[in-house]
């Protein structure tokens, strides 16, 4: 079973997407956890979280983006320009951060130069940066407009009952993933951080029904005694987006196991549930906007510190790796204060800056990890 998760996590296209497309169904890409998957699912389409793995050049990404931009959206644009996302029928770009929001224009312009690489449905979703009654109302309106545009463009209907069903389905998978987190937090964590990441990542690229079935089959096997820890140190990873299994392998190569995280391709994506009662759009708006774990939500540092601290304690971590992609000032700067405040609470931390994409700096990161492991051993 883990092989199936790994296979999906390591590729852009996968057999589930191929089968989905063969049945004549649509796929909608999105780059950030502030886009509710449930709406796309309720439209009968496959929500697919955009990634930039397996890029070998940034020739297209650098043509449209400027030089001091995060490599994550650049890699997505690179893949799109190369035709790597030709299976998409639509894409929703969100102002997750300033680098990400400009993917909207850069992809549109690249689409003019590389015909056929811009999906037929292309939408910008504005998400407020604060939680207040009026920002929730704004975001709920944005979601209603998003629903309407999907309905109009694709000739589908997204009624309340079907949206509720999608919410319940996604909540079920979230509960299963929270259960997996509990198992990872136990003294005998059942799987490596690399494999845990594969399990979570697969969920962003395959039909949720199938994914939930696979999780249900997979999790009971994780309750057996395991030799994964075997005296190794327990690590937690915090910070910028990371969907590269090799990065986790690298982190674990010096005698550690990643047993917890607060990343958007990780626990941040399933940590909280959507209210299953009441108006589904309002419920989605409340869950997704109140999701303050990303530093793009300004002024919620204390909540994020408490979240990390609580997870670190429950997972009994020996150390925290605070990482950020270069030019990700939101995570990078906040990591600086996390380091101060978490070290003051007795949790060893290491800050590291890296590039997204192929691990071209393995040696440097390995050296830093080795030094950190030596410190906490």
């Amino acid at each position, binding site marked *: 079973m883990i092989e199936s998760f790994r296979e999906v996590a390591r590729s852009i296209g996968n057999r589930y997407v191929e089968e989905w497309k063969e049945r004549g169904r649509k796929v909608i890409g999105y780059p950030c956890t502030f886009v509710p998957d449930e709406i796309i699912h309720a439209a009968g389409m496959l929500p697919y979280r955009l990634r930039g793995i397996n890029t070998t050049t940034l020739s297209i990404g650098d043509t449209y*983006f400027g030089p001091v931009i995060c490599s994550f959206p650049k890699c997505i644009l690179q893949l799109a320009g190369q035709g790597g996302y030709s299976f998409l029928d639509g894409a929703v770009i969100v102002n997750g951060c300033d680098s990400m929001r400009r993917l*909207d224009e*850069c992809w549109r312009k690249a689409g003019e130069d590389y015909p056929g690489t811009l999906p037929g449905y292309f939408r910008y979703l504005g998400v407020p*940066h604060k939680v*207040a009654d009026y920002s929730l109302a704004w975001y709920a309106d944005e979601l209603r407009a998003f629903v309407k545009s999907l309905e109009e463009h694709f000739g589908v209907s997204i009624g309340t009952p079907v949206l509720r069903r999608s919410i319940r389905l996604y909540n079920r998978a979230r509960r299963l993933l929270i259960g997996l987190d509990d198992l990872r937090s136990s003294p005998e964590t059942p799987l490596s951080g690399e494999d845990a990441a594969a399990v979570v990542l697969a969920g962003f690229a395959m039909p949720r029904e199938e994914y939930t079935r696979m999780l249900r089959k997979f999790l009971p096997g994780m309750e057996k005694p395991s030799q994964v820890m075997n005296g190794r140190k327990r690590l937690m990873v915090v910070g910028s987006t990371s969907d590269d299994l090799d990065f986790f392998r690298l982190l674990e190569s010096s005698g550690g196991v990643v047993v917890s995280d607060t990343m958007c391709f990780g626990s941040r994506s399933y940590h909280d549930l959507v209210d299953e009662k009441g108006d589904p759009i309002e419920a989605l708006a409340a869950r997704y906007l109140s999701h303050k774990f990303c530093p*793009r939500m300004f*002024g919620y540092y204390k909540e994020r510190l408490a979240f990390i601290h609580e997870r670190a304690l429950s997972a009994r971590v020996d150390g925290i790796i605070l990482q950020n992609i270069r030019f990700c000032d939101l995570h990078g700067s906040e990591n*600086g204060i996390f380091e101060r405040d978490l070290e003051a609470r007795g949790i060893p931390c290491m800050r590291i800056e890296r590039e997204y994409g192929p691990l071209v700096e393995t040696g440097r990161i390995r050296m830093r990890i080795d030094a950190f492991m030596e410190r906490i051993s």
Partner: protein
Amino acid sequence: MKRETREYNYDWNIWTILENAALVCDGTPKEYRSLLSCIPHFGSALDIFIRQGEPGIRFIRLVSQYIRNCITARERGKKTALTSFSMATPILYALDIVPICLEAFTIFGTVVLKRGTGEFLDYCCEIGFTETSCSSQRGALGAYLSGLATRPDMIVCNSPGWCDSNANSYAFASAYLGIPFYQLNYPSEVSGKRSSDYHRQDYRHLISFLEGHTGTRIDTARLGSIIDETMKQDELINELSDLQMLVPNPVPNIYDLMIYGAKSCANGLPELTVLLSSMVDRCRENAVKGLPGNSTAREKARGMFCYIDHYTTDARLWDWMDANDISHLGSILCRYWQADAPYAGTHDGEGYRLDKGSLDSMIDTLADMTARMPMVKQIRGPYDAPQMWLDDNLRLARLLKADFVVYFSTVGCRNTWGAVKLLVRDLEKQGLPSLMLFLDAFDDRVMSWDAVTDRISEFIHVRGIA
């Protein structure tokens, strides 16, 4: 940070220099020239302003008085708020809060201090702030974080929605120093009822925050008089924009910096009105005589800055352009989008109009004004959407009869670096020669000033502009 840098507070240090600089104008021209030789590292920058006569002298005095107000606020029983250049300050003054404009303090330090803000930029990195963050905040922020400047009582920023780097600096300062934080957040559209309602609700929450942290309530009469003053200032700034459209441009280059520098310090205060009046008078005289604002009395080319200016090395940008007979047509920072501004009004609701009719109308229209401050208006949405960056630049370039457009920025500007290649391509397609330079407007270590002038000169030559 060097020991001697820690000897005096950053803000106090700048204030004493500017306070004394303002006094040099009280002597005779001969005494003034003699004094300049005593301040070799600051003399050339000071002279750029003093040479302007009354407006330049008033500007130095206004800035000096502003900094004095910031550093003495606590002893005078006033609260201070660390805030951004993009925040319209009348509401803060109405609640007797002294706004400490971080970017203005970075510019003051960059221009005035012998070693610029390098050590403060680096100090931020030492305590965990990323080196890739925007230097326009980081320069002065290092002083506030290191305790070498007046500790603010609260933080008010209005950049979420249009600049993550800016907002992140203020959020970092709040978390690092443990200071209350309020953010005004902007949706991606500037006009229309939905955006307007959002702006206004958010603004009312800001007022509640400010009242809560000062223990005072808005005084309608006081707010009214500040709005009166702001309206006069808006008219004067609009007139300067009108005058800039003339060929030759009668507005001296340095007025670009003086407009937004002074507005960041004294928006809504009478001293800004007096300064702007003296600037308008001078430009009117030039216009009547058909003279350009340049000291050389020649205008070979007209350059517009689609984003910010360059502040290092004695603020030489404006002087260098002046010496090369190039008119500076302003940057994004000196456009405020009043409904009566010559560049506003194409789209319904694009500009704001202050309304003194009632307390509610004053608050609502101040919210409208704040939502159209420089950068808040035009880089919040897709660059090619109506009323956004491309739209504004094309309109301004045509009105101002610009020969070329320049993009200067900072290494920390994720937002504009994410779209500027597209913008430049589109401007060029419209026949506007456009130059994009990879530099940091506050940090010469990225590209030296000499390299900057070489690149601009070469661009002008190669494109046959002048």
